[in-house]
C-alpha cells in the first residue's frame, strides 16, 4: 500500500484523468441518458394506456380464476 502511494503522485486527487508512468488512468462514468434518446424508442400499434391496461388485466384475469371469484 505504501509502495503504491509513493508511486502514485496525486497532485490533483480530484482529477478524473491521471498518468502514472506509462499508464493513463481515466475515470469513466456512464453517460447521462437524455429524454430525447427515448422518444419514439418503442413501437406499438396500441395506445400506451391500452398496453398497460392489457398487461395488468392479464394478471387480474389469472387472479380471478385462481381465487374463483367472478
Amino acid at each position, binding site marked *: 500500500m505504501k509502495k503504491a502511494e509513493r508511486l502514485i503522485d496525486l497532485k490533483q486527487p480530484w482529477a478524473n484523468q491521471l498518468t502514472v508512468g506509462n499508464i493513463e488512468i481515466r475515470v469513466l462514468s*456512464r453517460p*447521462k*441518458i*437524455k*429524454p*430525447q*434518446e*427515448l*422518444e*419514439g*424508442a*418503442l*413501437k*406499438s400499434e396500441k*395506445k*400506451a*394506456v391500452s*398496453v*398497460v*391496461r392489457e*398487461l*395488468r*388485466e392479464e*394478471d*387480474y384475469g389469472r*387472479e380471478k380464476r385462481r381465487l374463483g371469484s367472478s
Partner: protein
Amino acid sequence: MDGKSEDLVLLDTCVFLKYFFAEEGKDIVGVLLEKIVSKELKAVVSVCTLSELVTVCIRSKKEEMIPTIILFMRQNFYVANTTPETAILAGYFKAQYSRNQKTLSYVDSVILATSFLYGSVLLTYDSEYDEVKEVGIKTPEEYLE
C-alpha cells in the same frame, strides 16, 4: 399540505409509454421529463413500472432498449421498492376500489400505495384511478398547467 407535496410526482407506466411510443401528447411528457432530469422536479417510479417496461420492450422486439431505459430511470428517478408496508396498503386499496364491477389490479394498487406512502402526486392517463380519494391523481397536462 396534508403531508403531500406537489413537487414530488410518481409517474405511472403509461406516461413513459406515451413518450416512448411517440404518441400524440408526447411533448407534454417530454416537458415533464426535462423538469425531472434538470432536478426541477423530484420524481418516483415504482419497481412495478420497471417490470412493465421490460415486458413491453421484449414484446415489441426492442430488447436492446432495456439497459438504456433502466439507466435513465436510475439516473433520474427514485426507484421505490414494494416494501411490506406498500404491500399491506396496496391490499387495502385493492379491496377498497375493486367493487361494483370496478377493478384495481395489484400493480395499480401497488403504484397507488407507493404514491400514498411518498406523499406524491400520481401522474397517469389511466381512468382506473378515477374514484381514488387518498392520493392526488393528475394527468401530466393537468399537473403542468
